[in-house]
């Protein structure tokens, strides 16, 4: 119980009082990722509906080449593992190891984007050719935007973890954990996208 006097004391020294509460930034991020996932869900639903009810004109049915997207799937899955390694290393206070793993993850992300662009330039259709083409570019493009943002964020936290004096330490894991969750989410979306768009 606080007495009247001590509550005045609190009032006076308001700036010195430190209350603590649970960290729920992760909870907020998960909520946001659910929302983001719903955007993808909308796109997937649109794509599948088109596939079911809007027959494409002759010459608009393509056999998509599988090697590049398969490579991309492997790249992203490996990058999820390397990101996890980075977190493990940071937890053991091996900051420079963690930084190396982060840079390697970002490198895999960049390779993914380059492969994606390479695929774009070699596809037999453009954005406005037909409904399938438009949906293909919208879905992969929206996902590619997520990978781009993720790669940038990985580079930022890798920069923050630079050896001693960096902001990213085993006491302040949140930036790494947040970006890691986001990265796993983007990977998960890719797997769904790969199955629906390329394999189905």
């Amino acid at each position, binding site marked *: 119980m606080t007495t009247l006097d001590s509550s005045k004391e609190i009032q006076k020294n308001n700036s010195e009082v430190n*209350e603590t509460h649970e960290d729920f930034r992760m909870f907020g991020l998960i909520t*946001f990722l659910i929302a983001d996932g719903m955007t*993808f869900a909308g796109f997937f*639903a649109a794509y599948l509906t088109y596939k079911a009810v809007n027959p494409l004109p002759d010459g608009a049915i393509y056999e998509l080449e599988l090697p590049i997207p398969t490579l991309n799937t492997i790249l992203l899955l490996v990058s999820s593992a390397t990101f996890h390694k980075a977190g493990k290393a940071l937890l053991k206070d091996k900051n420079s190891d963690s930084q190396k793993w982060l840079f390697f993850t970002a490198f895999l992300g960049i390779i993914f984007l380059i492969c994606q662009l390479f695929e774009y330039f070699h596809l037999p259709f453009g954005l406005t050719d037909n*409904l399938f083409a438009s949906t293909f570019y919208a879905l992969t493009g929206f996902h590619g935007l997520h990978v781009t943002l993720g790669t940038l964020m990985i580079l930022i936290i890798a920069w923050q973890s630079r050896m001693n004096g960096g902001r990213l330490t085993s006491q302040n894991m949140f930036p790494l954990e947040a970006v890691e969750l986001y990265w796993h989410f983007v990977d998960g979306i890719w797997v769904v996208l790969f199955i629906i768009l390329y394999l189905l």
Partner: protein
Amino acid sequence: MTISIDPQKTNNESLQPKGWLRYFSFSLDHKVIGIQYLVCGFLFYLIGGTLASAIRIELASPMSDFMPRDVYNQVLTLHGTIMIFLWIVPVVNGAFGNYLIPFYVGARDMAFPRLNAVAFWLIPPSGLMLVASYFVEGAAQAGWTAYPPLSITTPQSGQIIWILSVLLLGGSSIFGGINFIATIIKLRRPGLKLMQLPMYCWAMLGTSLLVVLSTPVLAGTLILLSFDIIANTGFFNPVLGGNVVVYQHLFWFYSHPAVYIMVLPAFGLVSEILPVHARKPLFGYTTMVFSIMGIVVLGLVVWAHHMFTSGTPPWMRLFFTIATAFIAVPTGIKFFNWVATLWGGKISINSAMLFSCGFIINFVFGGITGVALAQVPFDIHVHDTYFVVAHFHYIVYGGTVFIIFSSIYHWFPKVTGKMLNEKLGILHFIITFIGFNLCFAPQHWLGLNGMPRRVAEYDPQFQFVNQISSLGALLMAISTIPFLINVFLSVRNGKNAGDNPWNALTPEWLTSSPPPVENWEGEAPLVEEPYGYGKEISEQK
């Protein structure tokens, strides 16, 4: 893991402007943000109301003589968009939610104060952009639904600005929703159980779930639509092999839940107001909670009842009719709970109570026409007629806007420390109630007789009833005058309210009026029975 909160950092008191200037700053105080939402929303309400008046003036005569037809289309599009995205959604969620939820969960602020301020400051620029689009090349003309192919074929710049504006407002809404969910679930004061929360918390939890699950789908849809307009893709353009019905499905997947995003918080607010002014506990707390969650779940699976004339297959019509009819069950439970709360209560007839009772009457009427509209044969008969216009205005105006006014009368003493003038308040209620019913009740008849909505001209046989409706709109416009006078007079020299003028038990009344920056001096009180009215009297006996 825990984080420490340093008030100096979170609220930056020394750097924040004092007095009225803080309402124009990037303030992190949830109470300031709440008022920012409310005042900003009300200004847009005045703009949207002016547009509504223009519509009713045009419709006072059968020919389009007040404004050209395309201007009429722009006016009705702006009216709908402004009223939904800039008045009702921000005010009933953002304004009251930000102001009340931290009190109700016993917190000093929202879970993410900075995100909160960002969410608010997205609104004024996007609103101004939307209004300004009228002066560029003409505003959007495709209605608030922006159905293609209409939205693809009308002038582009207005439609693109409309899309951008709605995307920003949707983002604001999602940020707000994330914040509310985190605050209600994670930031509760230790010892406060979920089932002890005031009903508005439950309403906001349900609303925020809908916001987080459905708004992103609208965002994705509008991005595809903007591709159709700018990049010449064919997602929704039948000429290029696209499918307009897919747009409708995706749009209504957001926009039907949007109805609940607009009306669920009002359910919560009325559940706070009625017990206080009837001096009785809220009837059926648990059933209220389950009804809200039931509405949330059902609200996500009924969207296609807006599309019965869009070539929907029979199984879809059957499913969506039944699902929609089911929503009447939880809604009916809530209605009877409110009536039972009033039953045998010691009712004070004041402005807050009158507006709440007005809400119950209007809402049950709008609800009945809603169930009627869910039936396919009837819906096909009145689809896109004034019957629909009457129905949804009974929900959003007769329902939600009545509750917004009721809440302003109820919480004004808390926010300002001054009472509002009751005589002016009751005058405001009488004019609003008569004006509203005079304006919208005749539109049921117009719709049943086949007058189409969204058209500037109509068959001369409908002129007399339209003029009655316009007279009602005039009364509604006049009704804002006593309200504005009341607010300005009361802020300056209203009667002092004291900390708890209504003798209410919910936590926001257990602090000073207006509340201090971090809500409580000392620890937050633990309110285990927010509706324990009437107990002290029986104990005295």
